[in-house]
């Protein structure tokens, strides 16, 4: 089925065009499909970008956590170092053990 019409532009009669409805539908379908694919592609790219940013931020967080972890390790080491332990032991009233006497319990 076809539609035949005639229009004029600025008084100039245009030649008659015969548009096939099926072709128009096909064209419309192609346009819609392409648009959907493009939208899906854009959504995917956007999602990838977002995920990549998240990954990058998380990798930064890992590195920062690593730095915090190392700082804590050195803090613990400082607090449990021999001079600090000696100082705290003396403050608690401990004294160096000059000698240890072993007690022979003999055979059971």
């Amino acid at each position, binding site marked *: 089925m076809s539609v035949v019409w005639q229009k004029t532009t*600025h*008084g*100039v009669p245009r030649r008659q065009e015969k548009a096939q409805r099926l072709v128009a539908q096909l064209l419309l379908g192609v346009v819609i499909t392409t648009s959907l694919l493009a939208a899906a592609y854009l959504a995917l790219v956007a999602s*990838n*970008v977002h995920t*990549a*940013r998240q*990954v*990058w931020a998380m*990798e*930064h967080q*890992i*590195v920062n956590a*690593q*730095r*915090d972890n*190392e*700082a804590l*390790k*050195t803090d*613990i*080491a*400082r607090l*449990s*170092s*021999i*001079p600090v332990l000696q100082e705290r032991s003396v403050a608690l009233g401990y004294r160096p*053990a000059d*000698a*240890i006497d*072993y007690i*022979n319990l*003999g*055979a059971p």
Partner: protein
Amino acid sequence: MLRGPDARLRLITVLLIAALLPILGQLVRLQVLEHSQYLSEAEDLVQRQYALPESPWGVIMDRNGDLLVGNVPVYDVGAEINMITDTHMAAATLAPLLNLPEAELVKMLTLPPNTQDLVWRPLTRHIPAASAQKLIDLNWPWITLAPAWERYYAEGALASHVLGFVNAEGMGYGVQAFQLRFLRGERIARVGSVSGDTSPMPDELMGGSLIPYPGTDLRLTIDRTIQAYIEGVLDQAIADYKATGGTILVMDPRTGNILAVASRPHYEPYRYPEYAQNGQDMLFRDPAISVPYEPGSVLKVVTVAAALDSGRVDVNWSYNDTGQLEYGGVLIRNSSGGAYGQQDLQGILDHSLNVGVATLSTRVMGADLFYKYIRAFGFGQVTGIEMTGEACGLVHLPTDWDWSDSNLATNPFGQGIAVTPLQMATAVCAIANDGVMMQPHIVAERRYPDGRLIPIPSNELGRPISAQAAQLVAEMMAHSVETIAKEAQVPGYRVAGKSGTAQIPTTGGYDPQQVIVSYVGFGPLPDPQIVILVKIDRPDVPLSMRWGTQIAAPVFQKVAARLFTLLGIPPSNLRAGP
């Protein structure tokens, strides 16, 4: 004149095409003819190397897992100085935070005249995280902070020679320099398109993770408690005897594990740039492994062990000590100057007879056999310990051009031969360990970032003497302690040992005054668990006191007594059982 709409349309079409042609031409020029040039310019703008901040190096722990060397997060500070509006105000604010003089900062922050380009300048390195946070709080866009690491020595200067350091060029000393390839992490850097804040574009991140690999942790054989104790004892001994330096080394003869090693002079590893700047690089050399010395009479135990193992003598062998022996053009005398008459091997060790061991080397063994044992005990070659800068000592062999017959007469009592304290202790370990000489080692385990634990096994260096010869010499050394060198006795424990008093070689002879006194011993017998070497350099005490038995033996006794307690070794009578 244009007639009709068709003509006008054609004219418009032509004009439009004419207008499009230059645009098309430009497109062809940009996209085709000069494509590569513009592409490279565009790449220059967006292509950068990108990476995450560097991972920490591996930490170093003692044998119980206590941290000896760790990492402190710090920051390097820079400034884009063309963005600064008020240089003097900025300098005044930054000076206390960066610990820099204000005048110096003003100079650093001032833009060079006639400069239009972006100028970035480094201001200082390694500021602590707290100071970095204060800089961030200032919210100055021209300040740049780059995360970095600084090595942290948890116990200060403890075991400084063992731990060492590594400078920016990757050169250094101690375990850290030797194990650098394990300790240093691996940074992953790529080149690609970056955004305005220099982070990689999303498609770049598809290439995989950028998280850098941290370094491998090391667990040492060192025990920090023993280390701290022997360093205290060494400092006290050096002060008491007004010595210039010294070494105390504690080894497990069964495994070769070094439990502690302290040397003076030493340094604070975290201040190494200052020492280097002041020309004090010599401090970095570890006297325990890098500075050979003539060991003196301590070497007699090796000579006696060699003679016994060779089968040329047995415990019943004796000689007539006349107090002197001439060989190779030199006259050998006993250190006391006296003659001791008929003496056996026990007498040689008890009285530390130079003539006795010279008799063994020259009359009993001969050069080939004597030096075969010297080499078998590891003298003149490195032990292979996991530290940089190990010296091999100095042993003149009969095949060397500078060897003379006199070497055969003087080497048996530790003169004319130079060894490191580590070599000497390793050789005595062989005697303590039934003739099996273990390779000294200081790295017990590697801990990889993925959780793998790789223990480093003990290696056997060789069997210079038989178990029987080793046990005989150990018994003789123990007998010497029980009867003669009572300064080395440890109440409740049976120990073996030998003292040494060595002259110090100078140009054309020996220093008439200065000596190096030493004592090497092990215990508790019959199953020795530790070997202790004590060396005190140039003690400034009356001449009558400058003997190994007077100075080094009491230090050995003190260290041995405490270590038996620290290591939980019960006294000999309890160990023997009911």
